[in-house]
């Protein structure tokens, strides 16, 4: 019934590409008052994926919200992706999703109600898959479709995974291929094959639930999910939060088939340039870098994978478990070293 619906038609920046620039955001957020609480375990000051409040000695709640304009043509797919993306922040903190609320902006004059139904149905099915309960939401009229969720999860206060706990000597594993923004931009101008597009869609729909279970089981303490600021941007947050240097090997980055060639042909979304400005001074690129790989590391991801910092001795086993759980592109992409003074916190080689 939705054969003719293409949500990408009138969207300039979809998905996590639509984020505001990180530096501006930080400046604004730093000026708003916050009630000090001894129970706030993770707040906004460390640029982490979600907030964490300790409720009792054995229970903490994790709260997050995320919504954005369409990142794909089909309404049901969009609902699935937006939900997977919102829930991902819970998984990145090592939590279990508990409940969720819909956040919807919808132009009812422009699209029929079946489009809204498809988006909500896609989201709801993803919430069920994550084992969380959908308890309602809020919908307002707006010229552009936006959809997402506010999600609550739970975890033991002792096993919260943050972006501030990476330790020198550990290695970095990334669980999903990069290039979602390149593929979506390419889709809008018919530069991408159906096969690659479908691959990116199914990757964006994929929950980070199994990656989370593997992290919790393995006692991993440092991770973040890769979204709008790109691998490089989120690596900067992790490096700064942990007080370490992250060395990322560009030649080991997993990406969707054809993405490298698309970047080479100039299919570089605006968000990549915004992310480039955001990491200036924080990330160091070698002089004769492969420009296409650099822009891949800066590609804004929607519902991207998890970047986790793991003990080197466990890395092979964890990598194999990830691949066996369906994250077939998982790869070791770098290592954590002592912070090198006078050098940027992220070093791409």
């Amino acid at each position: 019934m939705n054969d003719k619906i293409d949500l990408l038609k009138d969207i300039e920046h979809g998905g996590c590409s639509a984020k505001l620039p990180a530096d501006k955001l930080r400046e604004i957020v730093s000026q708003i008052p916050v009630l000090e609480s001894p129970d706030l375990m993770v707040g906004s000051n460390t640029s982490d994926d979600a907030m964490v409040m300790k409720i009792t000695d054995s229970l903490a709640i994790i709260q997050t919200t995320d919504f954005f304009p369409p990142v794909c043509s089909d309404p049901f797919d969009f609902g699935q992706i937006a939900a997977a993306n919102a829930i991902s922040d819970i998984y990145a903190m090592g939590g279990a999703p508990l409940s969720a609320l819909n956040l919807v902006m919808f132009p009812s004059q422009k699209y029929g109600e079946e489009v809204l139904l498809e988006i909500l149905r896609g989201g709801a099915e993803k919430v069920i898959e994550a084992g969380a309960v959908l308890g309602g939401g809020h919908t307002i009229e707006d010229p552009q479709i936006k959809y997402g969720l506010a999600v609550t999860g739970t975890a033991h206060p002792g096993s919260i995974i943050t972006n501030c706990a990476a330790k020198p000597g550990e290695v970095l594993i990334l669980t999903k291929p990069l290039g979602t923004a390149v593929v979506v931009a390419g889709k809008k101008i018919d530069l991408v094959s159906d096969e690659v597009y479908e691959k990116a869609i199914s990757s964006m729909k994929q929950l980070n639930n199994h990656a989370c279970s593997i992290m919790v089981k393995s006692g991993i303490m440092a991770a973040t999910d890769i979204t709008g600021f790109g691998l490089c941007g989120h690596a900067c947050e992790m490096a700064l939060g942990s007080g370490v240097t992250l060395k990322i090997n560009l030649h080991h980055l997993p990406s969707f088939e054809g993405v490298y060639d698309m970047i080479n042909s100039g299919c570089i979304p605006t968000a990549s340039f915004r992310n480039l400005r955001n990491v200036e001074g924080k990330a160091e690129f070698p002089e004769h870098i492969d420009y296409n790989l650099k822009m891949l590391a800066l590609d804004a991801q929607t519902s991207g994978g998890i970047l986790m910092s793991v003990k080197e001795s466990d890395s092979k086993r964890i990598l194999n478990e990830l691949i066996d759980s369906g994250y077939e592109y998982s790869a070791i992409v770098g290592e954590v070293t002592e912070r090198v003074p006078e050098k940027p916190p992220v070093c791409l080689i």
Partner: protein
Amino acid sequence: MREIDARGQQCPKPLIMTRSALSDKTIEYGFTVLTDNATSKDNIERYLSDNSIKFTTTEKNDCWHIQIEKPGTESVLSEPELHCPVTTGKNRSDHIICIKSRFMGNGSDELGELLMKGFVNTIKEISPLPGEIILYNSGVLLATDDSTLAETFAELHSLGIRITVCGTCADYFSVKDHITTGTISNMYDILSALSNCSRVIYP
């Protein structure tokens, strides 16, 4: 010069068209990209700077003309008015003004700073206009976004004058991110430009 018309196109199409022209072997020396999308203009400029490709941008009737010199070819941008008329009524020569310091002359730095300001502000009044202005050592500080001369340099740039900033110098003073007008360049290109022009003026 070949014209690539990317007007009315959304990102990243204008950049794709630029990239495609760069690798098009039938375009020998350079080409001009037209875009009316400010974000695309910024992205193309950043892409070209990152890849050390020379370009000059002029704005006309809400449209940007980005003249691009293909790497490895001789300068074809020295006479951009042939393809992109700038209505200043001024002649332009291929001479270069080379600014070696933020101060003009030796003696008093305070006086030197005032003189330099006067010098740069006067450039646009003199005919013929230079083809290029090269900034090195503390001269690069004149072209940063917080310099009192920032607008003047932007104006000179819009008149079709190439503004070239020494990359090593911008790095040394940690102002690379604050160079809003001009192209970051290297010793090879700077020396080539100085060697190939008719005359060089040092303030």
